[in-house]
């Protein structure tokens, strides 16, 4: 088993909580894991990415080779396209549909969405609205992870456990909110 995942978004959007959740779940499943993060300069509202690699065998490179990623999980639609050179022919692109606009020349969102739809395996989810409906915009990340979860070879309950562990310091209410968000995303893709 091997899952190579690119996580993408804009600095400050918190893609690392998605990475941490998958990471904890992978450890619980006794999988090998490498996760490279971008720190520093690019965090100030610039584009950010993380390479997350899971396998039942030791993993060599911290970076995913081009054309080999099984999934792109993006919390921002334009950012999901930036990493297409990594996506394999059969890979899935799972992205939030709400744009994060902090540049003057951000392209029309319809054009971005139509580029995304050119990818055979894609899921476009309005995670912001779903998260708001559940009760907190900040759980949008977990909605997107939920939407991507059917393509990650980790049992769903391990992802749930990871959320319980990750948010334990923040209390029961936050845990439940994030579990609900994960479920909402999962159901969206399941439909």
């Amino acid at each position: 088993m091997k899952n190579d995942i690119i996580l993408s978004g804009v600095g400050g959007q918190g893609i690392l909580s998605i990475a941490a959740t998958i990471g904890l779940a992978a450890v619980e499943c006794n999988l090998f894991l490498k996760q490279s993060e971008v720190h520093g300069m690019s965090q100030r509202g610039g584009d950010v990415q993380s390479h997350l690699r899971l396998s039942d065998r030791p993993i060599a490179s911290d970076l995913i080779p081009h054309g080999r990623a099984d999934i792109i999980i993006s919390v921002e639609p334009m950012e999901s396209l930036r990493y297409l050179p990594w996506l394999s022919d059969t890979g899935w692109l799972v992205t939030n549909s709400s744009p994060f606009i902090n540049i003057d020349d951000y392209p029309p969102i319809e054009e971005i969405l139509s580029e995304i739809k050119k990818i055979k395996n894609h899921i476009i989810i309005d995670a912001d609205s779903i998260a708001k409906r559940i009760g907190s915009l900040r759980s949008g990340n977990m909605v997107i992870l939920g939407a991507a979860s059917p393509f990650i070879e980790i049992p769903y309950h391990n992802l749930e456990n990871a959320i319980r562990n990750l948010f334990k310091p923040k209390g029961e209410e936050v845990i439940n909110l994030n579990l609900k968000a994960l479920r909402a995303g999962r159901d969206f893709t399941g439909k």
Partner: protein
Amino acid sequence: MNHNIQKLLLLGDEAVARAAMDAGLSGMYAYPGTPSTEIMEYIQSSAEATERNIHREWSSNEKTAMEAALGMSYAGKRAMVAMKHVGLNVAADGFINSAITGVNGGLIVVAADDPSMHSSQNEQDSRFYAKFAFVPVFEPATQQEAYDMIFDAFELSERYKIPVLFRITTRLAHSRAAVELKLTIPEKKLKLPADQLQFVLLPAIARKRYRALLSTYESLKYDLSISKFNSFTDGSDRRMGVITCGIAYNYLMENFSDSKPDFPVLKITAYPFNKDVFTEITDKCSSVLILEEGYPIVEESLRGILDNGIKIHGRLDGMVPRDGELNPAIVAKALGLSVSAGRDVPEIVRMRPPSFCAGCGHSDMFSAIIEALKSYSPGRVFSDIGCYTLAALPPYDTINSCVDMGASITMAIGASDAGLFPAVAVIGDSTFTHSGMTGLLDAVVKNSPVTIIIGDNSTTGMTGGQKSQATGRIENICLGIGVSRDHLRLITPIRKNFEENVRIIKEEFEYHGVSVIIASRECIQTAIKRKKSRASNELS
């Protein structure tokens, strides 16, 4: 996984920090710098480090950190100092001379290199410094090796009484993997050097110690605790052998995830080495490919000046790009393997460069500077390194230099010496106490007509908001250095104060002497963090 052994998911940086703690570290010293920052941060947030009271305060710069670590080593305890690669330039004087004094307690100098310059001004290779200083190097390929090698590095440092350079690069520093922990070693007791003159580098002593260092360096080449980290694996296809240094090994092996290389491979993760390390592979193969992250250091030493041995491929003959970091595809290409490729990035995707955060004081400070500069010709703003360097980008397009930490003030002085008036320096608070204060003294002593604007956000912002040594001290430092009270101006960079700030800045531009304007407003990121942690404290 074996549950008797404790395993943690750690960044390369964290693995280095955790290992040092487990190996009996007594003092951690550092100045922040990507990709090294998380080493100190891990220790600062560790309950165990607090309990043991391991030293874990930031230093003013890499030189003060290096020297304090050497002082801890002098007193017989294990010390580590960490910095980004360019930090080693700042610490170089202490680093190179620490090889000549030698150490007492084990001393590890961690340099985190940033090939491809993800967040740096250059991609210098710290292994070069080690050779220059005659110091051994460990260059782990994985988080686990990083953890394990720290123990060996301390041991080697104490056995040979020599500092050890620990070289990591961005991809290892900022990548997380499971690390198996070892049994911990207790901290050392205070014990001064047996020879009271060991650290006194008077020429007569230094000459002796230097000769001893040269002979130590020769012995190191044959020491098992270094050579055991350089391993040879034979293969039947002898047309081309491959030599990897550090994490280059991972990129090689990535191309063989379902198989094994059928050619000989020499994996190097420790230096210095003797000739025999290479003869095994060079005797067997008709050519070799060298894969190293950074400069072609091993490649150059193998080629020598005459370059008349076996055929050598690498960065120097173009088989591997001359600059930038390696990756699996670069290695595949060099080996003549097929390179996988995905789709192209669609044309509509726009660049998204970093920018000032909403609510950042620097942006209001620059709005006022831009307005105040309107009556002068462009090209007179010397800046420095920090979040405020973003003013080089649109819509600000204001600054004309960013060279090394502290260079804003000193370059403004030099330009004013040449006749540029007004000459303006813009520098951050942490950069000011890192390397700006001495430049300010130069300006004061000769009364240079420069205007120095200190963007004081009370934190080391660019690297993620570490404590700044400058906080609450800048005004008194400037007065103490000799800036005149009348030309030490305090402003608050908020929109409401725009007109007044422009007026003050203009007044100081016109003054023919040293002016300092301190523009103080808390970093919006640290303000948010502070409010959050206060809220959660009130809840609990």
